[in-house]
C-alpha cells in the first residue's frame, strides 16, 4: 500500500493538498475582497440612483447596509422601493399608505414627498381610484408647501383628473375654467407646458372651439423641450388646426417649420400636400383683396 493509499484509507489528506486548498481559499477570499474594494462606499445617492433606473433590489441592498441615516429618510426610501414593483396588491397598499400618511405629518422635504405619494396612492396606485381623497391631498399639499415642486406636480396631476376622469362638471367650459385656475398657480415652465398640452388635447376630446385649443398648443410649443414624437405632432397640429380655423399665415408658418426642422417623418408628404392647399387658399385670399 502506498502512502497515498494509506492516507486515503485513513482519511488523512496529504500536506501539499492541505496547503493548496488553503491557498486556493485565500486566493478566492483575496479576489472577492478586491472586487468589493472596487465598489465605492455605499451612499443614499446610490440608493436613489438605482431607484431612478428601476433597480429596486440593488437599491435595497445598499439601503440595508447604510448606517446613521435619518429614520424619516430611511422610511421614505423603503416605502419608495416598496412602491417600485407596481401594481401594488391590496395588502401592499394597506401597508404603505399609513406609513406615508405618518411621514406626511412632518414639516420637512420628506413630508412633502410623502404627501405627494399619498395622493398618488389614492389617485392611481389602487385599482379603483379615489379621486375625492386624492384631490383633498393634492390641495393640502398645495396649501402646506405652496410653490414647491411637489405641490406644482400635484396640481398638474389634479388637472389631468379634472380634464378626463371626473364626470362633473358636465359643462365643458366650467371644467376648463377650473383647470385654468390650477394652471395659474404653476410656475415651473416644464410643468406648465405639460398641462398646456393636455388642456389642448382634452379640448379636442371635449370638442372645444379650435380657437380655444390653439393657444394651449402654441404655449406648449413655445416652452419647448417636449420629447419623443410629441414636438413634431404639435407642430403639425398647430399647422392643421390653424388651417381649419382659417388662420392661414399661422398654418403656413408651422407647416414650413415642420418641413424645415423635421427631415424624417412618415407624415412629411401629408404635410407637403396640405401646405399646397394652404398656399392655394392664401393665393385665393390675396386675389379676393
Amino acid at each position, binding site marked *: 500500500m502506498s502512502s497515498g493509499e494509506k492516507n486515503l484509507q485513513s482519511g488523512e489528506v496529504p500536506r501539499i493538498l492541505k496547503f493548496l486548498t488553503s491557498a486556493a481559499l485565500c486566493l478566492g477570499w483575496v479576489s472577492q475582497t478586491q472586487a468589493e474594494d472596487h465598489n465605492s462606499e455605499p451612499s443614499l*445617492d446610490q*440608493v436613489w440612483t438605482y431607484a*431612478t433606473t428601476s433597480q429596486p433590489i440593488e437599491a435595497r441592498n445598499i439601503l440595508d447596509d447604510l448606517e446613521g441615516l435619518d429614520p424619516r429618510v430611511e422610511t421614505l426610501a423603503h416605502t419608495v422601493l416598496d*412602491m417600485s414593483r407596481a401594481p401594488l396588491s391590496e395588502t401592499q397598499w394597506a401597508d404603505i399608505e399609513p406609513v406615508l400618511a405618518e411621514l406626511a405629518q412632518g414639516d420637512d*422635504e420628506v413630508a412633502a414627498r410623502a404627501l405627494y405619494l399619498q395622493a398618488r396612492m389614492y389617485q392611481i396606485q389602487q385599482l379603483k381610484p379615489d379621486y375625492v381623497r386624492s384631490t383633498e391631498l393634492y390641495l393640502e399639499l398645495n396649501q402646506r408647501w405652496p410653490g414647491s415642486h411637489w405641490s406644482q406636480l400635484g396640481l398638474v396631476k389634479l388637472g389631468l383628473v379634472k380634464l378626463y376622469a371626473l364626470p362633473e362638471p358636465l359643462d365643458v367650459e366650467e371644467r376648463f375654467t377650473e383647470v385654468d385656475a390650477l394652471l395659474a398657480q404653476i410656475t415651473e415652465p416644464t410643468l406648465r407646458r405639460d398641462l398646456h398640452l393636455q388642456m389642448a388635447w382634452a379640448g379636442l376630446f371635449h*370638442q372645444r372651439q379650435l380657437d380655444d385649443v390653439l393657444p394651449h398648443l402654441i404655449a406648449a410649443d413655445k416652452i419647448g423641450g417636449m420629447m419623443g414624437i410629441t414636438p413634431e405632432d404639435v407642430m403639425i397640429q398647430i399647422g*392643421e388646426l390653424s388651417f381649419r380655423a382659417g388662420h392661414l399665415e399661422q398654418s403656413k408658418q408651422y407647416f414650413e417649420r415642420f418641413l424645415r426642422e423635421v427631415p*424624417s417623418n412618415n407624415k412629411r408628404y401629408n404635410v407637403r400636400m396640405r401646405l399646397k392647399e394652404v398656399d392655394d387658399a392664401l393665393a385665393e385670399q390675396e386675389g379676393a383683396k
Partner: protein
Amino acid sequence: MKKGGQKKQWGLLLFALAYLFACYWVFTKSTPLTNDREITIRIAHWQIELGPPDGIQAAIDRYEELNPNVRVKQVMVPGTVYRQWMRANFAGNSAPDIVEYGAWLDGLADLPVRYFDPLTEDLMQPNPYNKGTELEGMPWLKTFTDELMEQRLNSPEPGQYYAATLTRGSLRLFVNRDLLKEITGSSERVEDFEGMRRIFKQTAAYSQREGRKILPLGGSKDNAIWIMSFYAGGVTNKYNRTLDDYGFLGMYPWQTQWKYLNQEWDYQTPGIMAAFKILDELDKQMPLGYMSFLRDEAVRQFMRGEALFIFAGTWEATSLRRLAEFPVDAWRCPQPTTSDPVVGEHMLGHYADGNVSTSFGLYLNKRSPHREVAVDFLRFITSKEGNQLFTDKSGWLPSIKEVSVAPEIASFISPEDGYTYPGSNISVGGGTRSVFQKNLHLMTGPEGSIDNFAAAMDRDMPKAVRSSLAVYERSARWAVLPQDSRVIAYGGLLENNPGDAALLLGQQRLEAAQNLSEARALMIARQLELTADFGKN
C-alpha cells in the same frame, strides 16, 4: 517511498496545481482559456433568415481586424423563443452586451428601462469611425437616414435614445421575371392597378392555354393579410383623413379604436366598402385555401413557378433571391389611381409603400462589463464602412446616410411620394385581425358578398376593439405606476445635489413622460366608460 507512491504524489500535486489555477481563473478572469483576445462582447438578434447574419459577421470581421484585443460573438436566437430567451437571460444576468429589441414585442415593456442603457449622450457625439467620410464630424444621431424616428415614437423613455438601427424596410411585390415575360411578353413593371388587372387576366389565359396551373399571387395567411392591409390602407386614406379631428394628419391606433366605439365610422361606410372590392379581386388571384397556409407555402408556390408574384416585406428579399432559380425583381406595388374604374372616386392619391423609419434596433445591456467596447462596436457597425459591409453582405437596406445601395435593392427605397393616413383597415390593432380572418369567407366564399362581410365585421368588431383599447389603457396606466418611485428618487438625488442639471433634466423628462402616459390612460378610460354600452347586444 515506493515508485508508485511517488507517482501518485506527483499526480495529486499536478491535480492540485490545476485546481489552484482553475480557482485563480474563475475568480479573476471571465474569458475562456483559449481566447487570445482580452475582451469578448456578444450581440444577440433574431434575424436568422438568409442575409442578415452574413452582414453582421462581415462587420464583425472588419471590427476585429481594427481591434485586435476584441472578440465579437454573434448570438442568433429564433424569433419563436426570443421573448422568453430575453426575459430569462436578463433575469439571470447572463444577457449579451448588445441585444435586438422592438417596442412591439409583447410582454417585455418593463425590460428597457430596467436592463438597457440609454445611448443618448453617445449619439450626440460624432462617430469616430466616420472619420475621412462625408459624415465626419456629424453627430452620430444625424448619420441615420431617419435620425432614429422609431426611437422618437417608441422610446422606453421619451426624449432618450436607446437603440442604434441597422436597416430599413418596405413592402414590395416580388416577381418572377422570366415567367412574367413568358406570360405577358414583357418584364416591365406596370404603372397602376389596372395594369395588374391586365396581368391577372393574361395569367389566367396563359394558364388555361398551356395547361399549367399558375396563379398571379403566392398565397398564405400572412402574405394575404399583408397585401390586403396594404391595398385597403391605400383606398381608405381619403376616408381616414376625414376622421382626423385632432389634426395630427394621421391617426394613432387608439384614436381609430375610440372612433369606432364612438360610432364615428364602421365597416359599412362607402369609403371602406370600396377597399373590400379590391380585396375581393386579390382573393381570386391566390390559391384556394390560402388562409390555411403558412408563409413558407407561399414562398414554395413562388419558387416552384406556380405563382407569378409574392407580396412581402423587403426582409424576405435575400432569401427569395438566393433560393430562386430565376431572376427576382422587386416592384413597388402598382396602386389604384384616382381614375381607377372600381375605387377611383375613393382614392386620395398615391400612398406610401415604405417606411421612413429605420429598424433592427440594437440596445445596450446596462450590465455589460464592456460598455465602452459595446458602444464602440455599435458605432462601427453603423458607420459608413460598417453599414456598407452589412448591406453588401445581407442584401438589406442600410440605415446610414451616404452608404451605397446595391442596384438590386435600390428599388426597396420608397421616395417621399405617398399619403399615409392610417386608421380604418381590415384590422385596427390588438386582436382585431382575427375578426377579419374569421369573416373573410363571407366575402370570398361561394355565396359571399361584400355586404355580408361588412355587416359581419361590424357585428364582431366592437368586442375586439374594446378589448384592444382596454389593453392600451392598461399598458399606459401600468407604465405610469412604477414611475412614481422614480420621480421621488430623483427628488432625493436633487435634494443632495441641488442644481445638478443632468438630474434636473432627467426628472423633468420622466415627469413629462409620465404626464403623457397618464393623460392617455385617463382619456382612454373615459372613452371606454362613455361607450360602455356599444356592441353589447
